[in-house]
């Protein structure tokens, strides 16, 4: 055994095995995803940007119960509630401060009517910090907030 070890040491077997490993990876397919031409689709439970949802009749699902306001660890949501014509509460203003949000999901869990939900948007960079205080109109599912954030 000692002779074999000495021989291995002289013939640099350990270095050659290392070189073989890197050569093997040279020939394997590459894992790069060339963004922005190719993108990876996030999984169903991905925690992207938050949006407000309405029910089939077009009414806000949110009933201004303030549960999400109380649940947020950083106090980023502020709601002003108001009674509508049918005596039910709905939010008059709903402001979400995205600049400090950590996307933890406590507000989504706290909501009893499933009004506030995660979406799969993650390209949220912007040039102006003031745009990160998002108002109710921009939080609906069909708004164009992403273009507004991205414009120069």
């Amino acid at each position: 055994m000692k002779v074999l070890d000495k021989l291995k040491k002289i013939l640099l077997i350990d270095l050659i095995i290392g070189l073989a490993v890197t050569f093997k990876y040279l020939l394997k397919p590459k894992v790069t995803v060339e963004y922005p031409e190719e993108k990876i689709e996030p999984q169903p439970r991905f925690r992207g940007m938050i949006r407000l949802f309405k029910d089939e009749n077009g009414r806000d699902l949110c009933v201004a119960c303030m549960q999400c306001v109380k649940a947020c660890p950083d106090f980023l949501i502020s709601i002003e509630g108001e009674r509508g014509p049918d005596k039910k509460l709905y939010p008059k203003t709903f402001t979400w401060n995205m600049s400090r949000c950590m996307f933890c999901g406590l507000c989504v869990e706290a909501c009893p009517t499933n009004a506030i939900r995660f979406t799969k948007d993650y390209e949220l960079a912007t040039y102006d910090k003031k745009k990160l205080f998002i108002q109710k109109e921009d939080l609906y599912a069909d708004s164009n907030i992403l273009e507004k954030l991205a414009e120069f």
Partner: protein
Amino acid sequence: MVEVLIVPLIKIIIILAFIIAVVILYIWFERRVWGFIQTRLGPNRVGPFGLLQLIADTVKLLIKEDIIPYRADRFVFNIAPIIVIVPVIVVFGLIPFGEGIKIFGIDFKFYLANTNVALIFVVAFSSLAVFGIILGGWASNSKYPLLGSLRSASQMISYEVALGLSIVPILFFSKSLSLVDIVNSQKEMGVWFVFLQPIAFFVFFIAGVAETNRTPFDLPEAESELVGGFHTEYSGIKFAFFFLAEYVHIFLVSALVTILFFGGWLRPFPSIKFLSFLDLIPGPLWFLLKLCFFLFLFTWIRGTFPRYRYDQLLELSWKGLIPLSLANLIVTSFIVLLVR
């Protein structure tokens, strides 16, 4: 008149263009190969397949601010990069890329000059680059580049000795120091010198890697005393010069290995008549192919191995490579004496 003045001028221009082209392509090749080894694509956006990446990097370095440290010695600071790069380029005048062709009756050889001390001249002159490194580190007026440059200089000097000692056995077979004669004697003997002198090849290659400050011997420029070693304080085009000088040096070492041990422009097995159809590929192309293999080997090694610590590096040279090449020299001389 034409032969004395115009032809060498054309050759100088061709050689300079060739060096620049090879360096640019080599850096692109290296970055792509590193990417492939690391299961990612290298740069592939600038230009087709990313070929113009180095041009973009050079332009970026050119337009950067030229910072000279406070109370640095200005003259020496500015001259150091030039001292590093000029000797290495000058030596290329002696490297033969092929035999020669006849154009319009003029004998156009593929090398600029052929003296009979070419080998010693090449090794000695290219080691002048050490001066540039020492001066660059000293002129920066800062503790850490100074220490880094001293380390780098002592590393290069120790491996010079091993480099020089390892090529002496070649002379037993070629009986001449001229690089063209060395290749021709490989043709006469019919076998590449690497098969006659594997240990000399091994020592020469490792000493060459250490000379050029590449991994696994690149501690002086990697993490020692924070950041950069001798080129910490350099920015802009001067830094680009140090960077390019390293790659030209790698090109030089690969070319030397090809000529001394792998037959230069000869085809494999030059003595076997059966394979003479390989002569269809011209000599310079064989040279380029072998050169490419060694450049790939440099890159492959850099991507795989960790780096030695500074004292282990010097120990490897003085206690490992130099005794090995001395022993090789003695054994070879005995065998040659017995055979003749």
